[in-house]
């Protein structure tokens, strides 16, 4: 009798742990997802022009199928999972800290755009645009314009040339702001 009870407790504990693991997995995954989206990022006022210009762009849904990329798809590294989680935590904490310790109206966003290579990650671009490397001369612009990049003959990043990607006419929105 006693023995059966103990077995039941152990089984119950295993089942409980399993449910807890699933629940926390769902909770973490959902939170990572929620905090990756523009709806979350725009909850800080200074991000408004970035999100408005994002919605105007191909990456923000202004395309025939309405497909969107999330903020962290581009603005956090995708080299590997730990680096991604760490990078997300780091930049989230940084933005939160700046938001409450600095006068954000004095930030020079145009100057920050000039060093865009530092906060837009090629590993993010290539997660979706992985077929670009396989482009052939039948699509000459995709082939020729990216050949030097994939052959490692240039230090340029994706956003060196694609200056406005993800945020169409962003200067207009920054001025309006």
């Amino acid at each position, binding site marked *: 009798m006693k023995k059966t009870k103990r077995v039941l407790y152990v089984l119950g504990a295993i089942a409980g742990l399993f449910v807890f693991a699933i629940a926390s997995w769902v909770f973490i995954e959902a939170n990572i997802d929620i905090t990756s989206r523009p709806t979350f990022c725009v909850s800080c006022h200074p991000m408004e022009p970035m999100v408005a210009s994002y919605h105007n762009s191909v990456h923000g849904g202004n395309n025939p199928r309405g497909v969107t990329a999330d903020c962290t798809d581009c603005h956090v590294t995708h080299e590997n999972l730990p680096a991604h989680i760490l990078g997300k935590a780091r930049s989230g904490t940084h933005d939160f800290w700046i938001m409450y310790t600095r006068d954000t109206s004095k930030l020079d966003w145009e100057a920050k755009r000039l060093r865009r290579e530092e906060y837009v990650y090629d590993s993010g671009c290539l997660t979706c645009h992985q077929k670009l490397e396989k482009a052939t*001369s039948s*699509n*000459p*612009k995709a082939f*020729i*314009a990216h050949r*030097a*990049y994939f052959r490692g*003959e*240039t230090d*340029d990043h994706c956003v060196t*040339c694609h*200056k*406005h990607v993800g945020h*169409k*006419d*962003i*200067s*207009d929105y920054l001025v309006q702001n």
Partner: protein
Amino acid sequence: MPKTKFSWFVILVLVLGIGLVACAPQAAPATTSQTERTESALSPAAAQPVSNKIVVEVDRNISNVNANSSLAVSRNLDEVSKECISCHQDETPGIVNDWRESRHGHVSVSCLDCHGVEKDAPNATQHSSLVGTDVYISVLVPPSKCAECHPAETEDFDHSGHHRAALQIEGKDAMQTLMFVHEGQNHPEVSGASKATGCNQCHGVRIELDETGAPTPDTWPVAGIGNIYPDGSVGNCTVCHTRHKFDIAEARKPEACASCHLGPDHPDIEIYENSKHGQIYAAEGETWKWDSAPDAWEPGDYRAPTCATCHMSGIGELSPTHNVSERLYWNLWGKRSAPRNSEDPMSALTGNAEEGRAKMEMVCESCHTPRHTAGFFKQGDDAIKLYNESYYDPAKKMLDDLKEKGLLKKNPWDDEFQILYYHLWHHDGRRARQGAMMGGPDWAHWHGFFELQQKLYRMQSLYNYRIENNAIETP
């Protein structure tokens, strides 16, 4: 029988007659409509006896794309560029025809790929047909745009002396004074005219924009190699690869360099023409192969090198470079020649002397023996040493002495000693040095050292007079 004879006679006459008629057009080709038009234009009296007006029809572009039919291109082009082409083949047929014959045309790089800009760019403009669309364009295509597909070439360029061409003028007070005060005579409106039509067209300029985003007429059009564009990028690829054909064969010919590297102060094209290399090019260059792939253009395609062969091409083991300073040992344009030893493109000594010489020797030895190459550089280096030590150093010593004693005029361009000093290094001295290092004997000697010795003697006379009399001579 006589009847038969008569028939034969008739047939013979007919055959001869037909033969004559058939040959007639060849003897007098004036029957084709094309020539008729030309003839009538040339001799108006005959064609139009009533009017004396001469009417000559001229095609604006000989291989005009719309001469016979209109060009409709649909292969791999975006919709906007198709529209550009449909109008511009009438508006600017030369541009569309160049593009049609270009590599860009072959790989579907078209109007908007280079001229399209984002709405928020400072130089964003729209002409009437684009108003209401979100397409913005600019007449300015900076090297940063070319770099999108040609990053290695623009990076090479950014490390070369060419990068400095406009920036160095901006930074020099004496140069600004020469351009606006002396050449521009402080004119209240047009003191910049000499700079705009002269200096800028080789050196380049900082391109300014008006309130519409279009370049100002004072700073554009400009064919200078060191242009500074509104986005901050520096250079001008179309100087050597002229628009809109952007031809590798064109840039390999010495004429590509000749619109700037000429004249009294750096007669490089004249030196080349004077050299044995130039002689061979002039004699048979038109039969050579000019369009081999980059890094695959080798001796055999040509029998003598051009400027591009030695200074840029991937000849033998060498890689092609757009850094024209990379294969140089000396600075041959400064007041006194020194070996190159700087990584800063803004430095007059940009480059690496030892590496540069080693690379140039590899170029020479693609055709010549090591003994030939070594002897050539020995002769050239000796000429540089002679200029430095026997001409520039004594001239500079006299100049410094006169300056210290207050025996120089304030306006250097009204002072014979200072004008001679300027010519000694900037004109004759460069001709001697560059002629010597590039195999142009007439320039090394008659336009170089022969002139130098007379300039130096005259400077010494003026110097002695001023020291003895403690006064500047009066004209």
